[in-house]
């Protein structure tokens, strides 16, 4: 199963704005896979939203919209 991930801010500089990731069924397995593919993410603070809700360890369904949202700082 392929899941499309949207990245924002400094996270997108590492992953690109949109990318696919395969065989992740929940947030925990998503994080493991993300850190494996993009080790630089380990040092980053970011939220994970699924279907427009911030989640900790929810199931990722086939058509879930997943987003990685870091804090922005500029003003």
């Amino acid at each position, binding site marked *: 199963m392929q899941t499309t991930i949207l990245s924002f801010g400094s996270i997108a500089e590492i992953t690109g704005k949109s990318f696919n990731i395969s065989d992740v069924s929940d947030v925990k397995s998503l994080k493991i896979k993300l850190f494996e593919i993009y080790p630089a993410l380990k040092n980053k603070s970011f939220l994970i939203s699924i279907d427009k809700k911030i989640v900790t360890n929810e199931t990722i369904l086939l058509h879930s919209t997943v987003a990685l949202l870091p804090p922005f700082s500029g*003003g």
Partner: protein
Amino acid sequence: MQISNSNRYIRQLILKGFGAAAQEKLTNSTILVVGAGGLGCPLLQYLTAAGIGTIGIADFDKVSLSNLHRQILYTANDIGANKAEKATAYLLNQNPEIKINTYSEKITAENANDIIMNYDIVIDATDTIESRLVINDACVHLNKPFILGAIHEYQGQVAVLNYSHNVKVKPINYRDVFPDLTAQAKLPNCEETGVLGVLCGIIGTMQANEAIKLITGIGKPLINQLLTYDSLTNEILIVDLL
């Protein structure tokens, strides 16, 4: 404070769902804007024009030439002057009917409570995590809503945090949203990554809009939600933080 008898606000008074009652709420409201830079300049202009009764402006920084492409309250003649003082002078000219309190010192953990306690709403228009956490912590301590705005390159974020009035859910604050952030966290700011002035205008104006909605009770403010706007694609993502 009395609502102006002039027709200064007539175009918003005649708006359906707004009217004199909403204008009176704006007139009686107090808002502190921390940071009179890229976000602070546009939002201060709109809050001033809309008739917020009392506005506090806090900024210890001085105007520099590299500010002028986005910090539209200032001119080349203001270079070297304190931003809070220059913004105050401009805005009182724009709307002499409001009151402005000027804070030209840095907001720190030592003075934050004494300043923030005088306001209904705090708007964060700063550019460091350290400042944001100081403001956040004082807002949590004093139970004040806190309107976040921040920029990264072509994208911006807006959120209404720590808002508890008439809301049954627990107020969420910035430390709840990003619990692993510390005051020492080094996130890139506009000086390092660059920014177009129009994005500051869009995000700052969104913050002003959220403040007006909170005060007057119109619409659906971004309470416990994080909005992310991409100026290159015009895409907006709003996520629930709870």
